[in-house]
């Protein structure tokens, strides 16, 4: 009995020592996790497609990318309006509007705050003939929508004032999208 008890105690001590050693080893070999510290400073941003490209003058593109959306309208609305009127004859006459009924001041005011409005209640599309600015789906022909609103005039959806400028005639992606996650097509 006594001998067995001594063996048991010895075993317990051995296990304890091993456990201590294991623990010690762990402290040495446990890898550190990824480092997520530090401050990250903004370099680029976007929301609606092509807005920065089309409406921001070349010397202002970097500053547009580091102006927060809540500050963009006061800083850029007039630039957007000037570039819109310079680009499109559809706003030549006082009171001219696009197919959304927006004048150059109103349309540039909408665009100058560059956020993408997204509905959480149903269809999400840039424009599908019914819904306007409720998101941006992969298959949306956003460029043609924007060309219609820039060049088409009041009747841009059915009878553009500048038909040669309001559709680039590229209406779909070069690969089919997936119906399930991650939705985007495999790379070429």
């Amino acid at each position, binding site marked *: 009995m006594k001998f067995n008890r001594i063996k048991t105690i010895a075993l317990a001590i051995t296990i304890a020592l091993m456990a201590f050693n294991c623990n010690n080893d762990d402290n040495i070999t446990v890898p550190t996790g990824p*480092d997520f510290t530090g401050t990250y400073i903004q370099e680029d941003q976007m929301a609606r497609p092509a807005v920065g490209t089309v409406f921001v003058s070349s010397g202002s593109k970097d500053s547009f990318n580091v102006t927060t959306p809540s500050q963009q309208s006061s800083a850029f609305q007039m630039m957007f309006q000037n570039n819109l009127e310079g680009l499109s004859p559809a706003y030549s006459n006082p009171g001219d509007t696009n197919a959304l009924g927006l004048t150059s001041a109103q349309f540039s005011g909408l665009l100058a705050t560059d956020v993408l409005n997204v509905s959480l209640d149903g269809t999400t599309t840039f424009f599908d003939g019914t819904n306007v600015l409720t998101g941006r789906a992969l298959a949306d022909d956003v460029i043609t929508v924007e060309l219609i609103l820039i060049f088409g005039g009041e009747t841009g959806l059915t009878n553009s004032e500048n038909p040669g400028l309001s559709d680039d005639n*590229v209406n779909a992606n070069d690969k089919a999208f997936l119906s399930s996650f991650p939705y985007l097509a495999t790379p070429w």
Partner: protein
Amino acid sequence: MKKTKFLIAAAIIGVSSIVAIAADHIDAPAVTGGTNDITDFYAFQGQNTSNLVLVANVQGLLSPSSTANATFDENTLIEFNIDTNNDNVEDLVIQATPRNGIMYFFGPAAPLQTGLDSTILTNDAAGSVEITAYGQNAITATENGMQFFAGPRDDPFFFDSGQYNAIIDGMATSFNNPGNDSFAGTNVLSVVVEVPKSLVGGSGTINTWVESKRRQ
């Protein structure tokens, strides 16, 4: 008259529009061609209509031969911004940043500070996914009700930007029919997040945008 005015305007603007390419591809000198250059942003309802899908694409116009060598930058933070009360200030962010072949996601959660400077919300880790290599089947992960993907994809953008630039530069007066997709056959690096709508506002309309930020 209208056409004349347009051509004059095009000639004036043309000089400054030589690098105007597309959705947001190579849009500004500070980011053009860099790892932080955002090419596109999408936000749409998921296959599960209770979810919202957010897509950020960076590093556009990758040829197939250059795609295998394109990598996400570990000093880059991609941040989806969500404004739920229509003041155009972010109330929630979803952050993505790569480390050693894995894309880590944080949020949606309130940022510690709004605006141009961000810190990573390590107390709001959402999950991670192995970055899919070129030529590999898409690796996705599902954690906390969210789905994640990061890796090369076909650029979903389509536009005859070549003809647009010709028009702007005064070399053409209209688009061609059919047009030529300047982005056909090119790839981007994509970050895709699917998130329950209940975590980003629930109902109504939200305002969203995406930012790329560099570690200082």
